[in-house]
């Protein structure tokens, strides 16, 4: 009988345990459906922490900048590296203080916003073409039209006459060209396809530009590491990856001819140079195919996006001021951490444009920065 009552207690306890789990499951389900509208109130609960989300390309730089800024100001920034598109949609849902994106918002994303947003250029990056040609010792050179034809699948052998004509004196092998591209939607793809669409009429009509496109040929790899893996393993492969990734993993990359006709080696300096051009007042410019004579042509800004009117969802003036001050610090003092992490520091033109844009941010109609 004693044993019996012990068993009863045990089964009771088990029952209670299951009940607790099921209750928490149910409450999770309930919470999930409403999170879109009311979670900003959560973010307001801690006034000394800001929340951002978006570009994974920016993440290493942001981590460094935010930890340095935390030392001087005590402000915590929680950045979620979820991808540019997801960052923009979180800003649209007003669940974050700022979004970060490798591409300016497109028309459809803009129209989903309930209030106007402003873009602040925060850093610049480049996309390089890495290849696997063990026989070729010199740096490969590419012109825009040849590059487009390679990715359209029209040039299929490395010893093609068009490639040989640019790379005089280089002995090119007869191997087939294997294209490696990103399989995940990404800002890197967006920069690269924007460039190809600018320099090739055929690319623009056949494929177009976007963070994911319908590739005519090639293998998809997930992330920079996936593309880099395909390139390293496959003889005759060529693919596009971020400059920072190629430098850190010492992969070979090609010189690309820019609009002025110069063959430019991608580097921090040539990316900053690409940004030294006429920047429109809203900063929403693609640096691809830049006019700058010594600028690398496949480069792009990365932006932080915030609402122009900062008084929304019961946000305090204090919070808005902290956000704008943080962004101002990032485009000035924060730039010193760029080069060490292989990001291109903003050009002087970009910084002054960024300053002007930050001054447009208002709280209750009044400018935040004086």
């Amino acid at each position, binding site marked *: 009988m004693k044993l019996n009552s012990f068993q009863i207690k045990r089964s009771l306890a088990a029952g209670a345990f*299951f009940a607790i789990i099921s209750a928490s499951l149910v409450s999770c389900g309930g919470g999930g459906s409403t999170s879109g509208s009311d979670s900003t109130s959560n973010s307001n609960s801690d006034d000394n922490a800001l929340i951002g989300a978006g570009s994974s390309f920016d993440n290493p730089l942001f981590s460094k900048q935010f930890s340095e800024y935390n030392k001087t100001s005590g402000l915590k920034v929680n950045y979620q590296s979820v991808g540019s*598109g997801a960052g923009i949609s979180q800003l649209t849902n007003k669940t974050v203080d700022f979004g970060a994106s490798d591409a300016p918002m497109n028309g459809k994303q803009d129209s989903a916003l309930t209030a106007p947003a402003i873009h602040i250029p925060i850093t610049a990056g480049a996309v390089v073409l890495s290849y696997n040609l063990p026989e070729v010792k010199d740096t490969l050179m590419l012109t825009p039209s040849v590059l487009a034809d390679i990715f359209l699948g029209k040039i299929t052998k490395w010893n093609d006459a068009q490639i040989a004509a640019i790379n005089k004196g280089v002995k090119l092998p007869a191997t087939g060209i294997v294209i490696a591209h990103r399989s995940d939607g990404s800002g890197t793809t967006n920069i690269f396809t924007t460039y190809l669409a600018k320099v090739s009429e055929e690319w623009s009509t056949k494929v177009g530009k976007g963070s994911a496109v*319908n590739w005519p040929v090639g293998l998809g790899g*997930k992330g920079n590491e996936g593309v880099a893996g395909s390139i390293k393993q496959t003889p005759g492969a060529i693919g596009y990856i971020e400059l920072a990734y190629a430098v850190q993993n010492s992969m070979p990359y090609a010189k690309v001819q820019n609009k002025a006709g110069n063959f430019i080696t991608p580097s921090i300096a040539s990316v900053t140079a690409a940004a030294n051009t006429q920047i429109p007042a809203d900063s929403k410019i693609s640096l691809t195919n830049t006019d700058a004579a010594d600028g690398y042509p496949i480069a792009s800004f990365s932006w932080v996006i915030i609402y122009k009117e900062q008084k929304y969802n019961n946000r305090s003036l204090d919070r808005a001021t902290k956000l704008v001050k943080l962004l101002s610090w990032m485009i000035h003092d924060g730039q010193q951490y760029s080069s060490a992490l292989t990001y291109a520091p903003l050009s002087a033109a970009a910084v002054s444009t960024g300053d002007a844009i930050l001054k447009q941010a208002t709280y209750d109609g009044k400018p935040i920065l004086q």
Partner: protein
Amino acid sequence: MDTSVENGMVTRSDLPLRVINSTPEAISKAKKRAKRSFRQIRTENVFKKTLMLMGLIMVILVLGILLTLIVQSLPSVKALGPKYLWSKVWDPVQDIYGAWPFLLGTLLSSFLALFISIPFSIAIAIFLGEYHPKGWLPNFLKNTVELIAAVPSVIYGFWGLAVLVPIVRSFESAIGVDPIGVGIFSSSLILAVMIIPYAASLGRSMINMVPSHLKEAAYGLGATRWEVIRSVVLPYTKSGLFAGILLSLGRALGETMAVTMVIGNTSLIPKNIFAPGNTMASVIANEFTEADKPVYLSALIELGLVLFLVTVVINLIGKKIIDRFTNE
């Protein structure tokens, strides 16, 4: 009676008349006994209700997921219509979406993986279930097979990319197809390894459960071991073996990470089993974060819905086959 059970009180009316008329000790003893049995009944009720609640939550969860998928894919269903299923172009730039290449890739890689894995899983099941059920080597083998199921799929992906793909590439150049390495064939090989434990462990426990008098009778009639397996063990366990194979097929259909890393990820229709392709699960994983247009996002969710329905249909067909096996 009911009310007194619920509030845990024992009244005089609950006791038999015989006890009420006897000594006070007997009354209190009987009251105690009655109280205990009431408590047991209550526990039983609570436990039964908890079990029912758990089951109900699972049903609600699955229906909720299905409902979410349907509601969220409505924009794409409206925009693209049923031709979504058989059109061959997936072009997010121009908002043209067709699931056919991915449907084909999913089915091709999963069934190919299944065919590769079946000989291994059945052999392991027979070896562990019939030949060597006990001992250190079978135990070691059993644990190893179970470990295969516990390894995270991203590790299979890495291993596939680093080790398997170069081997497949040299194999491909030896037989004269494009030596790319990644593709449907590589992903099927990886999937085959990943799904072996599901069919193997279910098959092993099924074979263990074959009544020994059946086998002993067969041995008594002079059957060899192979004959016993062929005419007693396998016929007795075929529905269980099939259920295990079905379980592994379900796993193969939904596997995402490892497949994404070795399948080559192109939206083109695969020309042969060595060509690169894509599966529904890996397209969703790849493109979900950066789907920047409403129809694009919705088309990806519809892909999830199609995957869900494919899994349901395959499971239903499997159930039918199992029923036929057992009814024979």
